């Protein structure tokens, strides 16, 4: 939670500028939005100041989203951080595949229904972290 705003913080890890812009526009009234263009950049920032929830692109250059998730789950301090897969892999079975891989939620691109994005993030933030 950001002390200044009282809003939860969402980290948007996404290499496409248009997607970052879009997500920020949808979320900015409810979240403090931090943007990262790569997994490495995000992981370095989370070590010092973890967000409340992560919206993580899968098809990132270099370290992809699944590898970023593995790093987070292997880190004692960050392993309970809720992570939502944000992906254009949106064929039948993809949602179940990402949830089975350890993501806490799944949002397909393109975003057609902003309510689904908001609900998914809100559920993740509200869920007790064990």
């Amino acid at each position, binding site marked *: 939670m950001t002390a200044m705003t009282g809003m939860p913080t969402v980290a948007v890890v996404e290499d496409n500028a248009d997607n970052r812009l879009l997500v920020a526009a*949808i979320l900015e009234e409810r979240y403090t939005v931090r943007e990262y263009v790569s997994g490495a950049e995000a992981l370095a920032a989370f070590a010092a100041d973890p967000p409340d929830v992560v919206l993580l692109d899968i098809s990132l250059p270099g370290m992809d989203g699944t590898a970023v998730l593995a790093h987070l789950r292997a880190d004692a301090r960050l392993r309970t951080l809720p992570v939502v897969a944000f992906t254009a892999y949106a064929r039948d079975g993809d949602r179940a595949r990402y949830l089975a891989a350890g993501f806490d939620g799944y949002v397909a691109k393109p975003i057609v229904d902003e309510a689904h994005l908001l609900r998914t993030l809100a559920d993740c933030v509200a869920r007790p972290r064990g």
Partner: protein
Amino acid sequence: MSAEADDAVAARAAVERLRRFGGERLLRDMGAIFLDALPEGLATARRALAEGDAAGVGQVAHSLKSSAGQMGAVVVERLCQAMEAASRTGDLPALAALLGEAEREGAAYARWLGGELERPPGGGPAPDGAG
């Protein structure tokens, strides 16, 4: 309704959706990014194809697919999806055909979107060929 008309309706709906998400400013900013990224991405795919790099074409197609879908460039989105599938099997002739089509359809969509961005909000109907 014809497929072309369906595509034009989808393009119009995407533009209106972006206005709902973030107003005229978001539409213009995203439109500007896409109008740069689309030809740039297709040129990157063309270079990868020339090098016989099917996976490289697939990577670009994956990235453009979601942007095209978000902007309502549904024909380009479908072509990118088909390129992604063809890249998995390394089918270079199919990739060449699909990429050529994506370049033509992308140019048509860019003309439409350019006109749309110049038009005041709530202006006239979308021209044919939006896709």
